């Protein structure tokens, strides 16, 4: 198995408050990897650092063989086309409808014909479990669950190898949340994705994740499979996974 994301000794400070203290982890190809930890421990921050939205103070992050410390503009743009990101509230572009949201990267980055693009959009909409008739709705007209699905379809529109999900099941009812978990598992087997998930949802953690890293008190307190998680010595793990 090859490593696609490698985080080495990353330290992050917010003004004078330390968030990460020399964090290291590695994520393998084809894996569903979870970043877990108590609220405010910096899981989302680490995810944002991986997708180049935020700078870290020291250390290095390597994604698909690119060191983010020294990455050039063109390389960075290319890398951005190789991943998809699902934000917590979806972050669909509010001025575009679902179909236009999904079509946007295709329109900007490819020279596909409009007919082909609309075929792809139709496929992606159905892939994530939305109905074709929802395609013309705007983000303000749809529910939270649909927003997440639509945002997932947009994240998948360029057929990325790597998917980042920030709390994909938060704010969903338990049934939709399980549906979403199944969707993620199905997508992994269908498309051979590697997926990084930030999550709080215990059920979805057990159902979907292959390996996890648990961040507590600025450090990684555990990295590995869920089977021997009880062996780790952390207050958060003892209370969360009891």
């Amino acid at each position: 198995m090859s490593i696609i994301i490698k985080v080495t000794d990353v330290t992050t400070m917010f003004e004078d408050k330390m968030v990460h203290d020399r964090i290291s982890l590695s994520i393998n190809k084809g894996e569903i990897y979870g970043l877990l930890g108590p609220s405010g421990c910096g899981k989302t921050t680490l995810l944002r650092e991986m997708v180049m939205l935020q700078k870290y103070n020291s250390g290095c992050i390597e994604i698909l063989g690119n060191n983010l410390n020294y990455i050039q503009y063109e390389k960075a743009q290319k890398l951005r086309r190789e991943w998809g990101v699902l934000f917590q509230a979806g972050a669909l572009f509010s001025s575009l409808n679902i179909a236009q949201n999904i079509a946007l990267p295709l329109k900007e980055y490819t020279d596909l014909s409009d007919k082909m693009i609309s075929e792809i959009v139709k496929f992606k909409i159905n892939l994530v479990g939305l109905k074709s008739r929802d395609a013309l709705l705007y983000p303000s007209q749809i529910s939270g669950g649909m927003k997440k699905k639509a945002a997932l379809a947009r994240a998948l529109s360029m057929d990325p190898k790597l998917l980042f999900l920030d709390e994909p099941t938060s704010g969903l009812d338990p049934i939709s949340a399980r549906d979403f978990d199944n969707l993620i598992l199905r997508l992994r087997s269908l498309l051979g994705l590697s997926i990084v998930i930030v999550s709080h949802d215990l059920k979805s953690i057990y159902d979907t994740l292959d390996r996890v890293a648990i961040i507590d008190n600025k450090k990684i307190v555990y990295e590995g499979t869920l089977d021997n998680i009880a062996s780790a010595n952390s207050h958060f793990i003892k209370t969360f996974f009891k």
Partner: protein
Amino acid sequence: MERSLLKITHSNDEITLIFSGELSLYEISKFQKQVDALDLDKIKNVTLDLNQLSFLDTAASIFINNFQKFLAFKKIDTQLICDKEEIQASLELVKNQKSDALPHAKQKNIIEIIGKETHAKYLGFLSFIAFLGLLFSTKIFYLKSVKNIRFREIAFEINESAIKALGIVALTSFLIGLVVAYQSAYQLKIYGANIFIVDMLGLSILRELAPLMTAVVIAGRSGSAFTAQIGAMKITEELDAMRTMGFDPYMFLVIPRIIALMVAMPILIFVADVSAVIGGMIIANLDLGITPELFLDRFNTVIDVKHFFVGITKGPFFAFLIASIGVYRGLMVQNDTQSIGFNTTKSVVEAIFAVIICDAIFSIAFTNLGI
């Protein structure tokens, strides 16, 4: 609700306080006053009788608890008479709940406030300069190839922020022309210098009033809209989503807005010129008896075309200031809803201020250049 009563009985060095009814947070301040008024100097024993209470809430429990502590501090013996379990439980809950003292907000002195504010303003200025730097470096990259220019967005923004503003710009300038002419007509009549209204209006409208009024209207209308749109996109993480998809927000949102306004502003100023002059012409006709033919004839001979171009030239500069401040303020929105309102206000105020400064610089420059 049953009201609570406090009965106080004195005897030698003893006081008995009998509470009855429902003791809740609505009653405490009344009892606190009664308790504070007690003369405890020679008292050795206090009895608190809670047996007649039907209910005790947590606030009242804190009150009782504090009173007990106060008595203990004064070295007065206290007996608590209380048989009801619920009331005992409520008292226990308060007594056993350990809580840290709430932190005090640090008092700042005036020098610290001034220092911090000045530093914040300085950092704000630096970040605006950094924004301009990023803007120019993106713009150079952007203009390397015609393919990069996003004509559709620019056209959309021209329509949104300029064409749709034509009506209000024309109306405002028309009224300004009307008012200026009306005020000066009165003065000119005194000297019998009626015809000079044309010189006055022509110069002041073409050079100063029309560009400035247009800038103020556009700052209030379109500059604030830029801030609010981009700010809202920032809060909903749409800007982050764009970045992760490799769409530079500067390319997609910032530069089209700035270019659109820079292109459209001279057109708006032209419209403002025309409608303000029409406003002045109407007053000249009604008030001073100058016919439109005479007005235009005089206008043609005394007003040099350079005055018109001076006004129009200011347009793109004003537009750049308004659009870049509007967009910059939008990008400065933090992750809370208050921030949108704050930054929108700031954007309008700063844009108008910047436009006036810029106008002053132009005024000095043009005069010294003899234009």
